[in-house]
């Protein structure tokens, strides 16, 4: 499955990208889709079968599964 994670900070996105790299998960940085945020930010787009590890990340603002042209919310941290 393909996901998008958005972050509270750019630093958080970089940290998350680094942890994916260490886990051997294929990912790319990309601009946050405008549907998700009007703030200019970077999100991480990645393929993964098990996203449980995302639950422990304090950096993630929102996790979405890519569904065609839409982004279905998995969770949003406030």
């Amino acid at each position, binding site marked *: 499955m393909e996901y998008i994670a958005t972050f*509270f*900070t*750019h*630093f958080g996105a*970089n*940290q998350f*990208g*680094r942890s994916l790299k260490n886990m051997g998960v294929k990912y*790319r*940085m*990309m*601009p946050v889709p405008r549907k998700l945020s*009007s*703030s*200019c*930010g*970077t*999100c991480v787009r990645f393929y993964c079968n098990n996203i449980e590890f995302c639950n422990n990340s304090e950096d993630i603002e929102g996790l979405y599964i890519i569904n065609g042209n839409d982004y279905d919310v998995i969770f949003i941290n406030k």
Partner: protein
Amino acid sequence: MKRIYMDNGATSFPKAPNVAEAVYKYITENGCNVNRSSYENAANAEDILLDTRYMLCNIFDFDKPSNVVFTSGITESLNCVIKGLLKKDDHCIISGFEHNSVMRPINSIGAKWTIAECDEYGNFNNIENLFEYNTKLVVMTHSSNVFGNVLKLKKIGEICKSKNIPFVIDTAQTAGHINVSFKELNCDVLCFAGHKGLLAPQGIGGMIMTDEMAKLIPSLIEGGTGSVSHTIETPEFMPDKFEAGTMNIPAIYGLNAALKYIIETKIENIQSHEENMRKTFVEGIEKIDGFKVVQLKNSLHTPVVSITCDFMDIAELSYILESQFGIETRCGLHCSPYAHKTMGTYPEGTLRFSFGFNTNLDDINAVLSALYKIKSIKNMGV
């Protein structure tokens, strides 16, 4: 004539191996800004920045890479922290060895200061009595840029912690030369220079701070951060709060390469080599009449030695060393008038020799030989 560089206290030369190559490769092969766009090359540059923050955590014994902030240099770091924590008529405590990068911001704010005096062994006495009702900051250099003595700051950090007063350390002359531990020093903010002992290019430095300080200190420079762009307010989160505008990314690539080299080489090995050079130099110079090493009776020094000369103006001496022997030194007050006042060398100043990891015994012997020749020629009345 071989060039002998003895001015590493001003800036290190040569830089660490691979620094120039790293800067060149960034400029010619990557060239992207960071925290703005999100394509792969930009992400690669961002990864180098993150990697550099992690290595700085390693070097300074610190746990939170998001609180490692890049600035244009340690002068900007100190300005940001001092101007953020002090206002007119506040009181602060400093050492008697401060550089003007500390003194001038304090003075321009209109804050008051008290110098914590130390004895001939570098021991501070009665620090607790120096705190006043309006003391808002203790800021001290970790080592004198003129005399090389490493200040005994651990205890001061403990006192500041007990009084809940921010303790800021200027590591311009210690980072990369000796081990510097944020935790052991009990500091709240540690400011560092990239281009001295860390062997990176000029134009990069930074500051490392606790979460509490990150909240308390306002940003000195505001502008684009590439984050929360829908608002006109500077973000409060780290490190964006203190990193508005485009950073000196080429220099950060250089710092990255330099830190890899330092971590591989180990600071203990750098310190041991530099201390050998310093000791050999001090022992050698004490055998030549007419020169006096000015130093505290302190067991720990960075590789910096200041001398006075009783038969010649030190500016003339510096000139002869350079023009006739290729030896590059710095004479005068070294931007630290208070350090000279403390050691009794104000206003004449001293001639400073500052070594680096690249300094070898041949260099030391060449300098000693040159000083001996200058003294001998003077004795002959030439």
